[in-house]
């Protein structure tokens, strides 16, 4: 069958199970866009900035488990994808980014809208291809999807010259993928798993550190089984949130720079860390030399390069988390661990980081907790970066896997809105909330138009404090309150939403919070709420840079009030 390069690409996308593409057209991709209507299975969503397409594809992948796809034209279009690609790379998200390129005779000649996007993205892609012949297209696409979605997932770039899109070739969909240099380890080494089980059985104060790898591997059931069988408390990284139900008795929440005090104390006192699908990032460990000083470390991860990279590991196990846990769980003994759990519960009571202080002021933590209350925890939360992100991580009750979508590794402001867009498109039956700061929302605010054009019913909560909050917090705590370039003027977000055709509300008092959220939920379509919150709230607890996890700064203003329990949900 003779087709042109663009058609071959589309045929392959369909066979790979692609249902949605986020993109923005341009000269170099005209050939591709021209044939798209021939493939109605491929729904195209036109964004307003290519960064939005990349973030949406990333979030779509995180909530569906499928590969996210985005398209941009050459030159500036491709460059606009870079942040989104780097974001997907650092958080191990399976994304295939397709960029048009100038025609083959023009490559390397500084042609109009030409950039060496393959060169630019070498450090931030799992792999990339410059497709120089239409008859390579099918093999390349097949390989790209395989690489993006297996082992440790990551973004793969396909750079396709415009004349390759229109070049004809015979189309045969490759049966197998031939990649001699790519053989991810699927199953863990049985002897290592046995050793790990023995170490767990002998430990007195074990904790589990669960990261995004648990979610990527779809291993939340196996994690629950391990924790419950061996009575081990579970701590998550930021990106591991929702891999373990936070209302479970064994859940200690998040660790790290803004983690729960009781989680950090448990890690610090522990004699064994069972690290599953996490990479000991500096935000999680605090000062590495003082990290978990008394603990042995078991490290289970699909990426061998992460093992031993930041911390010394006693029992390394390379393999997919789900497979490893299945074998490990059989060998682990059931133990009560009464003393250790009593200690951990004592810390949880005495350092109640999850409890919001009682005040009549409208504080951002309260807004997040009310979103949790009203939704019953039955929602997908997409955060920005900074204080809004930390409060969303700390004060929402995550129980269902993949209910938090956040930019952890790269920490990209502006992720919130396009991510919520991608998440809603991927899981249309779920409620999706974007929790944003007034700074970050302005970085990708143009995607409000996409919400309207494609009727994507995302609910948006802006925690509007008139500052670049997290930077201001650091300036307050470490730079003697010298607020340089952090006070922020914003437009009237309600008017902006209205200009885009999105209903919105402004909330200025505590009493208005819950009714506004309920109204947003009732509305059938996108809705925006501008919460005017206390300007100088800080995220607590905090482990300052250069400190260890034991050196926790807690909220000096807190009067403890018991937290209201959210509604039960019926399934996990």
């Amino acid at each position, binding site marked *: 069958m003779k087709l042109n390069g663009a058609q071959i690409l589309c045929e392959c996308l369909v066979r790979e199970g692609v249902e949605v593409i986020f993109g923005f057209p341009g000269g170099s991709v005209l050939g591709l866009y021209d044939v798209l209507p021939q493939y109605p299975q491929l729904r195209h969503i036109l964004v307003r900035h290519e960064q939005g397409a990349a973030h949406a594809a990333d979030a779509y992948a995180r909530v569906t488990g499928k590969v996210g796809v985005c398209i941009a034209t050459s030159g500036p279009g491709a460059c606009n994808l870079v942040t989104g690609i780097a974001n997907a790379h650092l958080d191990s998200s399976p994304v295939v980014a397709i960029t048009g390129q100038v025609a083959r005779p023009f490559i390397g000649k500084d042609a109009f809208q030409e950039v060496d996007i*393959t060169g630019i993205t070498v450090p931030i892609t799992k*792999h990339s291809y410059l497709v120089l012949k239409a008859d390579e297209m099918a093999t390349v696409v097949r390989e790209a999807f395989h690489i993006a979605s297996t082992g440790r997932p990551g973004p793969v770039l396909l750079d396709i010259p415009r004349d390759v899109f229109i070049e004809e070739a015979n189309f045969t969909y490759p049966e197998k993928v031939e*990649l001699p*240099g790519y053989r991810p380890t699927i199953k863990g080494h049985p002897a290592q798993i046995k050793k790990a089980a023995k170490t767990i059985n002998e430990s007195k104060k074990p904790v589990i550190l669960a990261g995004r790898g648990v979610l990527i591997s779809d291993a939340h059931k196996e994690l629950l089984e391990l924790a419950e069988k061996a009575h081990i408390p579970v701590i998550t990284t930021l990106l591991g949130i929702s891999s373990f139900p936070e209302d479970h008795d064994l859940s200690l929440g998040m660790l790290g720079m803004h983690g729960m005090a009781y989680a950090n104390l448990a890690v610090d006192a522990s004699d064994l860390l069972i690290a599953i699908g996490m990479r000991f990032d500096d935000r999680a460990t605090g000062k590495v030399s003082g990290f978990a000083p008394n603990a042995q470390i078991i490290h289970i991860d699909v990426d*061998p*390069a992460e093992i031993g990279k930041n911390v010394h590991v006693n029992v390394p196990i390379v393999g997919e988390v789900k497979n490893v846990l299945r074998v490990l769980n059989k060998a682990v003994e059931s133990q009560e661990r009464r003393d250790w759990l009593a200690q951990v519960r004592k810390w949880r009571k005495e350092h109640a980081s999850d409890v919001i202080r009682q005040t009549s002021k409208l504080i951002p933590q309260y807004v997040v907790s009310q979103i949790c209350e009203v939704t019953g925890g039955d929602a997908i939360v997409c955060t920005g970066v900074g204080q809004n992100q930390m409060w969303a991580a700390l004060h929402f009750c995550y129980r269902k896997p993949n209910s938090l979508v956040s930019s952890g590794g790269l920490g990209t402001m502006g992720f919130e809105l396009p991510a919520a867009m991608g998440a809603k498109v991927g899981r249309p039956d779920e409620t999706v909330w974007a929790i944003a700061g007034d700074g970050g929302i302005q970085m990708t605010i143009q995607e409000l138009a996409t919400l309207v054009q494609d009727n994507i019913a995302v609910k948006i909560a802006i925690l509007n404090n008139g500052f670049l909050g997290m930077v201001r917090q650091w300036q307050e705590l470490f730079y003697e309150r010298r607020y340089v370039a952090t006070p922020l003027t914003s437009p009237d977000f309600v008017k902006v939403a209205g200009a885009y055709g999105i209903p919105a509300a402004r909330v200025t008092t505590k009493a208005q919070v819950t009714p506004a959220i309920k109204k947003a939920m009732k509305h059938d379509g996108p809705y925006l709420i501008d919460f005017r919150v206390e300007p100088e709230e800080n995220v607590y607890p905090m482990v300052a840079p250069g400190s260890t996890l034991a050196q926790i700064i807690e909220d000096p203003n807190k009067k403890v009030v018991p937290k209201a329990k959210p509604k039960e949900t019926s399934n996990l």
Partner: protein
Amino acid sequence: MTKHTLVALVEDKPGVLNRVASLIRRRNFNIESIAVGHSELPGLSRMTIVVDGATTAVEQVRKQLEKLIEVVKLTDITGEGIVARELALIKVHATSSTRSEIIQIVDIFKAKIVDVGIDSLIVEATGDDAKIDSLYSLLRKFGIKELARTGRIALQREGSGVE
């Protein structure tokens, strides 16, 4: 000896060298040399990388390189059982009064003179880096005009060795 020799079999595709170099740079690995050329397998090149183990985590270099899709196989062959060689071209200052002494040194090292000019000559030397380093340091007193070294290539021994 803190130098480690890593040998990688990489796919002979455009951009592979760029990917390897980019990885080395961004992870701040301290690399002494890289030499790459065709191997005995069609479509695969053999890349020999020398890493200074004192300033760089060799284990991380190995693991990160292995992650690259085009790296088919990577082995750390540091140790006794290898043959390691390097080629150097040294353009030395040589006047009529110093020429004979230079020639003597070159003979002792079993190197060759491949070019003679009015005030210089080019020495070609092959050997392990200890030999090249010694020859180079002896020739330095005459004044070196230019030096070009290929970097180490190495294969594992299977016999008991001839040299």
